[in-house]
């Protein structure tokens, strides 16, 4: 209960906070080529997505694989160029930044990868992994770099620090590897952290530890946080708002307490119904799962992209017209014709 209350108070206060990252009508499409020339079509990975992220705010993007959440994240990181729309960070459009601007931008944004073992170079020890971003960042003074590395490793609770510095990734446990990845993301003192399923590869007992560590860092440094996940049960310990993504679109946006109590979009409903809590009664019933699979992003269905799987479809409307964003509750938006005012 305390959790939801704190969340709500931060939400009413959020208008006063500065917008750090603003995503405006973002489209990220990938070309499909036919025999090397000619464009056969586009994979519409992100299609008309907009949201604002405030300083010190944690949001979660929830969706299944292939819904475009990784493309969205990589565009925010500046790795993909948007086809349309803008990513504005602290007043600057990142797709218009030059080399210098991007270097600055990358010091402002930290990235936590999904698979810690894959994300750490196997031939570098912890010291070099953490030293390199500082060297690239232009910190010439070795003592200053070492001080920074010690501080960050202490923050991610890898102590005694001296024991860990010479270790290579294969000598660390999964949890320690993920801590190293977090330390690397934090090393240049960023304002925004993007975490792509940071705990999905870890064991259940370590998972909570890492989530609490991230939450602690987010609060002490007043970081903005984008948490990308498919696991609804972890988001409420972590973020203030949830964006539910389906087939390249954010179909529902809202404060966490409201969405979990009162999900509006049929897809959010289905995701929640499919999430299990440990309970022996689960074995007695079947789960309600929408039929079919997520649509192709090359030729998404006309109208609402969820309509072929939706049990509450309005014939003649949902399969023809794309739903605009409705706001049935304050701060809670949904792209679904059921909520037409």
């Amino acid at each position, binding site marked *: *209960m305390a959790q939801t209350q704190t969340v709500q108070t931060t939400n009413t206060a959020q208008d006063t906070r500065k917008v750090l990252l603003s995503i405006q009508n973002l489209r990220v499409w990938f070309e499909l080529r036919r025999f090397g020339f000619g464009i056969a079509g586009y994979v519409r990975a992100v299609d008309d997505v907009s949201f604002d992220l405030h300083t010190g705010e944690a949001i979660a993007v929830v969706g299944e694989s292939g819904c475009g959440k990784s493309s969205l994240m990589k565009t925010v990181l500046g790795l993909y160029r948007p086809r349309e729309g803008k990513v504005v960070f602290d007043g600057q459009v990142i797709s218009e930044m030059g080399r210098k601007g991007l270097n600055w931008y990358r010091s402002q944004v930290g990235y936590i990868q999904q698979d810690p073992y894959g994300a750490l170079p196997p031939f570098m020890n912890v010291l070099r992994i953490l030293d390199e971003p500082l060297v690239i960042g232009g910190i010439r003074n070795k003592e200053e770099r070492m001080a920074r590395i010690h501080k960050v490793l202490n923050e991610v609770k890898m102590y005694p620090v001296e024991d860990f510095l010479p270790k290579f990734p294969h000598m660390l446990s999964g949890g320690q590897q993920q801590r190293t990845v977090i330390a690397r993301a934090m090393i240049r003192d960023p304002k925004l952290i993007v975490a792509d399923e940071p705990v999905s590869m870890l064991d259940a*007992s370590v998972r909570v530890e890492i989530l609490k560590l991230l939450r602690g860092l987010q609060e002490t440094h007043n970081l903005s946080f984008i948490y990308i996940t498919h*696991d*609804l*049960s972890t988001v409420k310990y972590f973020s203030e708002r949830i964006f539910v993504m389906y087939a390249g679109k954010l179909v529902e946006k809202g404060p966490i307490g409201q969405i979990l109590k009162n999900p509006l979009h049929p897809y959010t409903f*289905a995701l929640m119904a499919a999430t299990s809590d*440990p309970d*022996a009664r689960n*074995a007695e019933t079947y789960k309600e*799962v929408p039929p079919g699979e997520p649509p192709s992003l090359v030729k998404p269905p006309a109208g609402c992209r969820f309509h072929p799987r939706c049990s509450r479809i309005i014939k003649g409307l949902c399969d023809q017209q794309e739903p605009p964003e409705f706001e049935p509750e304050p701060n809670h938006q949904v792209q679904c014709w059921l909520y037409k005012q």
Partner: protein
Amino acid sequence: MATNSDKLLRVENLVLHFRTTVGVVQAVDGIDFSLDSNRAVVILGESGCGKTSLAKAILRLLPRNVAKYSGKVYLNGTDVMAFNDEEFRQNVRWVGMSLVPQAAMNALNPVIRVGDQVAEPAMIHLGVKKEEALNLARQMFQHVGVPEDFLARYPFELSGGMRQRVAIAMALVTSPSLIVLDEPTSALDLLTQANIFNVLKRIKKELGTSFILITHDIATSSELADEVAIMYAGQIVETAHAKDFFPAPLHPYAQMLMASVPRLRADQDPEFITGQPPSLINLPTFCRFAPRCPKRFGKCDQDPPVVEKDGRKVKCWLYA
């Protein structure tokens, strides 16, 4: 022997140790459990606790570096450990029990049509002709919810969830009484995961198959579990009926494991377990969980006995 015949599977003091360059890994170290027919047992534990090795020990799918392999496995009252490898292959594997290995969806042969792959075990183990085997495969596809025309497709033409269903169909085609599932949904999406569990529940109900489900995911394991066995450092520390276990686990490790599960429908802050599981090479002679246990007391420096309490078994001094 008479006491064994009423159980579908009975495992007694099963041991599987591996030889490595750094020492002997005691992956499975004296496991006892039993399973009635048409029931499902979940083996829960963190990674590296020996869950997968237990599956391999039961099915005798052993690598070359085995240091010790002993104990008894009774399937329908027959001691299958007494069989030699060829007898085991002919009489136990596939026909008695089959395995859906970890990441089974990636284990399909990419250049053979999935229908032929599913039919193959039926041709080899049931000795049926190809047409009949394909018919069986078609029936199994219906059970797992794969459209019939997928028989002629190749694995790359199927989504991850569909491939996982095909792998389950393959394990089913010889109609074994027991299927061992090793992390069947760990690489799948939420909705696909829910779908696969629906399929497994339906198979259990319609075909009366029993399951051993090996997983680290406590929340989804409750979707199938009749019995729960908690594994820690090569041993089972608690076994109980699911309806007793989930509301109130007994072993301190099981309690902490349950407390670490984030819940969607309850406002309970998850807690994590400090420390790390012991290395399976240098195992302590005392209780293996004692170094991480908050309820540790004087007796814990000795190996705890297995205590029976209200039809549950727990290996802990607290209940002795």
